[in-house]
């Protein structure tokens, strides 16, 4: 099997502030993120040879990208892969460069969720289905309710007292808000206490409002080029080690095999990514990780799915502060989805932006020590059959 490891480098990134950006349009967000990325890379838009736009709800075709940026008749494609859409756009751009189809490619992810008049996003069992017709019998459970299925079963299987389990989940929200409070681009920059999280109104037990990520607008962009060209643009390019995607077949709800305490696609995507990047012990080799904490319980399960905590024992690592900024493996150093919200198309690239800046040691008060390798992770769709993306990037080419 082929590999993309070290063939492609990210030479510029941009990321808007995330939040309820009432005065910004989708086009504004695309323009702001893209121009920051170009400026960071030291390239002009006219140097871009091909572009990919990742968005789930905020545009249908390439015509959502070329017109605002006035791209000049270059190939442009819109990609969509649910919550993994941002990473999917980067993957398309990186693979095109690796294939030699172009030297400089642009990936933009954008989502504007706050123009709808609703709170929340379309449930994922609608996303990804035919929009032209359904039987109308699909389950209407909300995204937090879907993830609460994990929590209920996790508490049951590992015999966690529900109140104790809820407190554990609250610790994750508190950690991410502590990180987010250090980040001026985050939607929410307030710290939380465990008590506040516990007392928040329940949405789907054990998940309360503060166990859920926010609903925000935002965009992020990346410029990629061939690794051998990267140093022409900057001294500190970030090299792509792996961009792994695993897609489930919704098997988990069709048969009785699925245990509802893990997400198989998370595990498979991570295994693929570690193999490609040559990582044997992810917990010690990774310097930081940005993961899909749409709901606190998912972050807990991710610790286990991605091989950092033993099965059923994330509790110990949460209690030991393993995943805090000063811990063994800092997770969601920018505040995560919890503080950024989750504009679907943008999230994957927003995570990449944090890892990119961390690996360049430009993260100020959130900077992790001696960074070498960073990971991003998204899960789109359902816990019983979705799309998981795991990317690994590093600040050095592996000379082995």
């Amino acid at each position, binding site marked *: 099997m082929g590999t993309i490891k070290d063939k492609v480098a990210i030479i510029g990134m941009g990321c808007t502030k995330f939040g309820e950006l009432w005065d910004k349009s989708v086009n504004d967000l695309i323009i702001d993120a893209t121009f920051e990325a170009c400026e960071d890379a030291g390239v002009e838009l006219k140097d871009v040879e091909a572009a990919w736009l990742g968005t789930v709800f905020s545009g249908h075709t390439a015509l959502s990208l070329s017109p605002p940026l006035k791209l000049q008749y270059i190939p442009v494609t819109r990609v969509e892969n649910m919550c993994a859409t941002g990473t999917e756009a980067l993957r398309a751009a990186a693979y095109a460069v690796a294939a030699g189809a172009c030297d400089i490619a642009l990936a933009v992810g954008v989502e504007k969720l706050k123009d709808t008049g609703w709170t*929340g996003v379309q449930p994922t069992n609608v996303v990804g289905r035919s929009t032209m017709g359904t039987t*109308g019998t699909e389950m*209407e*459970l909300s995204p937090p309710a879907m993830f609460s*299925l994990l929590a209920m079963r996790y508490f049951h299987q590992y015999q966690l007292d529900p109140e104790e389990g809820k407190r554990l989940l609250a610790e994750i929200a508190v950690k991410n808000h502590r990180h987010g409070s250090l980040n001026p681009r985050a939607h929410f920059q307030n710290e939380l206490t465990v008590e506040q999280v516990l007392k928040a109104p329940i*949405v*789907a037990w054990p998940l309360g409002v503060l166990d859920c990520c926010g609903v925000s607008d935002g965009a992020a962009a990346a410029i990629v080029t061939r690794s051998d060209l990267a140093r022409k643009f900057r001294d500190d390019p970030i090299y792509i080690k792996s961009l792994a995607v695993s897609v489930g*077949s919704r098997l988990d*709800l069709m*048969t009785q095999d699925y245990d509802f305490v893990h997400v198989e696609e998370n595990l498979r995507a991570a295994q693929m990514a570690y193999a490609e990047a040559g990582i044997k012990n992810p917990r010690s080799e990774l310097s930081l990780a940005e993961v899909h904490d749409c709901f606190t319980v998912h972050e807990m399960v991710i610790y286990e799915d991605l091989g950092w905590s033993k099965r059923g024992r994330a509790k110990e690592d949460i209690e030991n502060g393993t995943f805090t900024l000063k811990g063994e493996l800092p997770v969601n150093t920018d505040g995560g989805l919890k503080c950024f919200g989750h504009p679907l198309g943008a999230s994957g690239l927003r995570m990449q932006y944090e890892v990119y800046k961390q690996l360049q040691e430009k993260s100020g008060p959130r900077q992790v020590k001696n960074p070498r390798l960073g990971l991003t992770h998204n899960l789109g769709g359902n816990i019983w059959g979705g799309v998981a993306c795991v990317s690994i990037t590093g600040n050095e080419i592996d000379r082995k």
Partner: protein
Amino acid sequence: MVGITSFGFYVPVYRLKRDEISRAWKMKSLGGERAVAGHDEDSLTMAVNATLDGMKVSQKQADGLFFASTTSPYKEKQVAAMIAAAVDLPENTRTADFMDSVRSGTIALNSAIDAVKSGSSESVIVAASDSRMGAGKSQFEQLFGDGAVALTIGSSEVIASIEGSYSVYSELYDTWRLEGNPFVQSWEERFILTEGYVNSMQKVVSGVLEKYKLTPKAFAKVILYGPDGRSQANLARRLGFDLQTQVEDLPFQSIGHAGTAALPTMIVSALCNARDGDKILVANYGDGGDALILQVTKNVEKLQGKEKIKERLARKIYIDYERYLNWRDLVPSEEARRPEFRPPSITCLWRERKSVLALYGNKCNQCGTVQYPPQRICAKCQGKDDFEAYKLSNKEGKIFTYAIDSLTASREVPAIFGVVDFEGGGRVMCEVTECEPSQMKIGMPVEMCFRKVSRKGTIPNYFWKARPRS
């Protein structure tokens, strides 16, 4: 010999105490309680549940299905066809709806008897079901109750044979309901009781006695339609029946007046207590009257399902009046600020009718894995197009995990979603009904029931939900 061969019974678990209605309106309570169809039930779903209940004990598959009601969810479209599809009867089943009169239950029964007697059908299920509404503050609001009964008419294993029948019609505005009005209307009580109820019932009862040369004393039991307890008692006395020993009680205290299902409910209850050789007189009212003479056979001794009826009646969830108002859409309320779901596509529903309406999955012939919805490539072994159809609606299961969802745009929030693992294989995720959130437990035994699923637009949509198994 043609007669009743089996029956099924359904009453919603929800009860509204009449004192609770009187509290809201500061008016006199009639006492007792009434059954209330859940927010996800209507006369169609209740009929499916009663029919399935009856099919569990019947020996033979029916070749006819008649639906009787005054509260069809459709002004135009047959309900019987939907019931037949949900209970999985073959396509060559004769289906018909008998609508619009509270007497429709016995009208349908007479047609079923004639169909079997003539030999054109072997076994016909008559599903009578109603969920009528009285306007707020009305007597009807307290009197009415919701429920369904399915009586099967056939010629073998007969529990009670039909020995005679007599009918009259009467053109009189007693109760009626016009297009666009959800509430039953009526004329002045004294008039409709005297000239309507008493007059028609006297005619039909004396007519049947005369026709078959019988006296009131010939009957072990008499099942008389009653608009309320007192009127029924007065009528029984006037007709010469002994209230204490002969007259079957109205289920007003526990269910209420269940419209077309009211009299069939009393037939079921009488059969549960009947003995071999008993003669039973049945007299129904509504735009005239129907009388039937039943002769109980020795098959009544091996009658199944009596305990189940008691259990079903004992399962209750009490609701308050506000919840009732919400369920019946009697108070305008704000829509949840959530993304809208599309109404169903009729084409999609038709294409997937077996898996939606009868909850068919399939079972891989190569590895034996049961899967839902039906697949073409096996989820387990990836074998292609090598399956047999596998019905899940009649399987029992357990809750593997569940969610209490306060955010979903359902009429009843929080809604409960459960992952159900079936005995013998298969898993579905579905809503859980007849269950309050605090009752939910991992491992809870459940069975499937047919329900309305809330959708916007003009297409009523039905699917299966899980409910706790007793």
